């Protein structure tokens, strides 16, 4: 057994990882049960930032991610849109990533079209689409939206959209929600948005796990709250569901909580592998010393 572990083929590790993810997915799908979540201070800060908004307040949602990180960020996007829709704020969607508009479409279809059909496009929500230029886009729209956005995503003149009437720049939004998978994303929004205009632009964000440690230095002054990876999404989801979910929430609003199951088993597997590898390492080292 020891010899087998010492020369363990990586394909066994791949198989173990595959099983540690698929089995929890299957069990959770079958039973409908997931692990409980305890919201962190940062998730509560994000929730509170949206809660503090009043009906009709303008909120900019920048979806700066792609299908590669949908697993982590998709549930966040769903929860954010649901929360905004429940608060009856005006939602302005935009994207700094080329496939961001598809992410926006998904969230709108999943939440607004199916559960909030009374919301009217152009009056309650609008999709401004993608603009190339990364932080260059942010630098322009923080002072003048119309320099870059002359139409919405479907090509309608921006001046004919009722909810755009009072919007001149990003400074006119009461909150900026950014969902980010990398560059350009939260870091750029902080650097070119909330940092030069600390009293006018308030940002909360959701990001991938690898990005989260890099964004902590901006909390709390430049970034009011942060959801880190699927764990942050699950915590925020719980807060939204506890307040607005009712007795039998739709499973699509519990997606992050469900995805925490496979993550738990995968983390345990990685810990087990590290312990095993170190055991082998020390046994081998002892052998070398004794020889």
């Amino acid at each position, binding site marked *: 057994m020891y010899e087998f572990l010492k020369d363990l083929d*990586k394909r066994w590790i791949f198989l173990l990882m595959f099983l540690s993810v698929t089995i929890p997915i299957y069990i959770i799908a079958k039973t409908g049960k997931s692990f409980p979540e305890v919201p962190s201070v940062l998730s509560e800060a994000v929730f509170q930032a949206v809660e503090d908004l009043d009906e009709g307040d303008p909120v900019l949602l920048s979806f700066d991610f792609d299908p590669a990180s949908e697993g982590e960020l998709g549930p966040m996007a769903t929860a954010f849109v649901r929360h905004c829709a429940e608060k009856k704020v005006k939602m302005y969607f935009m994207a700094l990533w080329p496939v961001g508009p*598809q992410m926006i479409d998904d969230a709108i279809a999943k939440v607004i079209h199916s559960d909030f059909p009374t919301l009217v496009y152009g009056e309650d929500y609008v999709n401004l689409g993608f603009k190339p230029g990364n932080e260059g886009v942010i*630098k322009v729209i923080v002072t003048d939206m119309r320099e870059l956005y002359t139409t919405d995503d479907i090509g309608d003149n921006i001046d004919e959209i009722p909810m755009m009437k009072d919007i001149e720049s990003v400074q006119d939004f009461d909150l900026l929600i950014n969902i980010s998978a990398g560059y350009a994303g939260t870091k750029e929004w902080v650097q070119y948005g909330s940092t030069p205009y600390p009293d006018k632009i308030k940002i909360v964000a959701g990001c991938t796990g690898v990005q989260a440690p890099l964004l902590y230095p901006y909390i709390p002054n430049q970034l009011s709250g942060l959801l880190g990876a699927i764990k942050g999404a699950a915590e925020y989801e719980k807060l939204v569901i506890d307040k607005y979910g009712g007795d039998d929430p739709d499973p699509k609003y519990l997606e992050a909580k469900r995805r*925490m199951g496979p993550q738990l088993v995968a983390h345990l597997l*990685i810990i087990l592998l590290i312990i095993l590898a170190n055991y082998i390492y020390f046994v081998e080292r002892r052998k070398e010393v004794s020889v």
Partner: protein
Amino acid sequence: MKRSVPLLITALGGFILIIAYFIPAAQGWGEVAAIWFDILASIAFILGGGNLIKIHLKKISDKSAGWAYSAITLAAFLITLIVGLGKVGINPNPKYPEYALSGHYREIGSPFWWLYEYAFKPLTATMFAMLAFYISSAAFRAFRAKNLEAILLLGTAFIILLGRTFTGVYLTAWLPDWMSGLKLENLTVVIMSVFNTAGNRGIMIGIALGVASTSLKVLLGVDRSYLGSGDD
């Protein structure tokens, strides 16, 4: 001339942005420069596409190693480009029915939507998901408690890995309230918001100073490496 003009543009753009940042009266200059940047970023897509075609066509014509992948890349690029730009199979916008290309490029059920939904989306999601396999294999092969630094790294990794799931809550739920700071989920928060933040802030300040120094060199024309090695 080949190098002087780009040097001049760089210096002009850079100094305009610096002046616009520090002098409120000149803020408009910065906005104009930023708009120019966005226009150039859009044009860069065309340049990037042209470059991609050039590189892969060369690989195919030279029959160099992996040329078949280049053929697949080119085919995928051209098909997506033609289907997207040509708005193939997309119905005209109901507001402008007389214009064939007035429809939306992401129309559900269109060939472009199909390419995104059934090719791009699963492929990119799969690429990202593969990380889990590589991370687990790397953890087994590379993570060794060889010295004090490695032991500290391992300990931190264990706390974060456990604290980011319900295992952390479950394993240390028995701790009394006065020891709640030692609960794994709370330790995770402390590690992230104290040690990680302090370390990252230090690194970021160092990077910022380095970027400022490098940028000045570029703007003043001292560092010309970004122009390539072409002669005047």
